[in-house]
């Protein structure tokens, strides 16, 4: 119960802080919209040139896919690894470590607050895009039901994975390279270039084997309604496995990292 009270207090503080930076959070939303739209435009051009469809994906399917992708990306996003690098480098982590609460809880609250405040606006923009591109959703009620655990697992997976990358900051002061590596892997494998079924076979195999697709692309396909029940089950199992693995790794890395951490400048 004390944790509930703590969370309530942190959430209230978070919302108050957010209210002070309204415009800022709206600007950051441009990032969530531009990339899906440009790849959508590319695929629409390709599909139109080939008579309206690419390997069974129609223009409307592409529109639905990328609208869902933007929505899921926003729902699952986490920026903890960039923030953490800054906190370790500035030595600010020391103060947080002295508090009785694990630093991860502050990130969780920041994350929830940001999403709750930006989602309504993003939703409105995405509806306009969906109408403009004539999106065709194949979603059935059971898709929506499965989407809930899928998106929660995806958000959890991305968050824990981000914390693993973040923990590397205990040993290395320059984390940019690790973050870039992660971002580019996500760019290729998470589904922003194309729906995974349209990728070359060897890339598909890699995509299914790595964790990135389960963070964004997989729940996107569920929300768009393009998956069979078997594929949905495959996705959920894959997410659960990766989440378990990442959580175990995170525990080990965090415990060792705290011991290695000496606070820059201390």
């Amino acid at each position, binding site marked *: 119960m004390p944790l509930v009270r703590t969370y309530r207090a942190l959430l209230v503080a978070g919302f108050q802080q957010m209210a002070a930076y309204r415009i800022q959070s709206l*600007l950051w939303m*441009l990032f969530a919209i531009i990339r899906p*739209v*440009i790849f959508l435009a590319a695929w629409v051009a390709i599909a139109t040139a080939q008579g309206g469809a690419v390997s069974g994906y129609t223009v409307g399917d592409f529109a639905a896919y990328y609208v869902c992708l933007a929505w899921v990306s926003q729902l699952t996003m986490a920026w903890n690894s960039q923030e953490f690098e800054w906190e370790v480098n500035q030595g600010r982590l020391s103060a947080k470590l002295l508090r009785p609460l694990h630093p991860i809880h502050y990130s969780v609250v920041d994350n929830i607050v940001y999403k709750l405040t930006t989602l309504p606006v993003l939703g409105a923009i995405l509806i306009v895009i969906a109408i403009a591109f004539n999106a065709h959703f194949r979603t059935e009620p059971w898709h929506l039901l499965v989407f809930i655990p899928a998106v929660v697992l995806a958000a959890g997976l991305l968050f824990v994975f981000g914390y693993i990358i973040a923990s590397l900051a205990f040993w290395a002061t320059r984390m940019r390279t690790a973050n870039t*590596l992660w971002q580019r892997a996500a*760019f290729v494998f998470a589904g922003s270039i194309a729906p995974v079924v349209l990728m070359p076979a060897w890339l598909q195999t890699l995509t299914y084997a790595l964790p990135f697709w389960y963070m964004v692309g997989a729940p996107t396909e569920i929300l768009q309604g393009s998956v069979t029940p078997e594929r949905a089950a495959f996705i959920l199992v894959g997410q659960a496995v990766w989440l378990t693995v990442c959580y175990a790794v995170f525990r080990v890395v965090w415990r060792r990292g705290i011991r290695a951490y000496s606070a820059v400048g201390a």
Partner: protein
Amino acid sequence: MIRYGRIFRSFVGAEIKNELAYRLNFVLGLVEMLLVVGTSLGAVLVLFTQAKTLNGWTLPEMIALTGVYYLVQGGVNLIFAPSFEKLMEYVRLGTLDFTLLKPASAQFLVSTRHISIVRISDSVLGFVVLGAGLVMLGEAITPWAALAFALTLACGILAVYSLLLTLVTLSFWFVRVDNILAIFWAFTDAGRFPIDLYPGWLRFTLATIVPIGIAVTVPAEAISGRMSLETFAGMLAGTAFSVVFASWFWRRGLRSYTGASA
């Protein structure tokens, strides 16, 4: 002019000395850039496994365009982006006073003072990718095309520079504008595809307010010999206008600057 050349040379020299102290940093920056450019090319290749052309652009032309995309980014990120980031900090802290007191054009000083040497790799990689695209294209480049390319590329970078200068000038009125630059960074991504691909509103934005679209597409058109004369004339006129406007706006903003202790 010669004097400004000398000032700029000393800025570069100082940056290089600074950079030499962090050699691993430089190597890592290079590795990052290889990752970024490699995956961007990968995205283009994935698109072309499903199509022969992208809105009339063939694969070699698209590769050349990707090269130009990184050339423009390199041009901006090498000098202007790091300088402007510092400028916003100076305005916030009031230390811009020191720059204004120096006997040289303030606009020149704030635009070129900080150089991110490692970003030369953007331009080098951009040239390599562009060269690969042109070799694949297999057509001889006429001197006229090469000249048009150089001119439009310079115009594109200048147009983007003008936008950035205008945005950071806003920091004289609003102290927190680092987020205004986010507008630019968000739209930058759209430069990776030819501008004719996009729906009307986005094409308009990328050709006028955030000119990253034309800054990449027009030089790519020029070097593959498909640019029309109207586009060329429009590019020159548009750039001239935006440079004049940004410079006027900067001087206008400077008058609102009140300094550190005021």
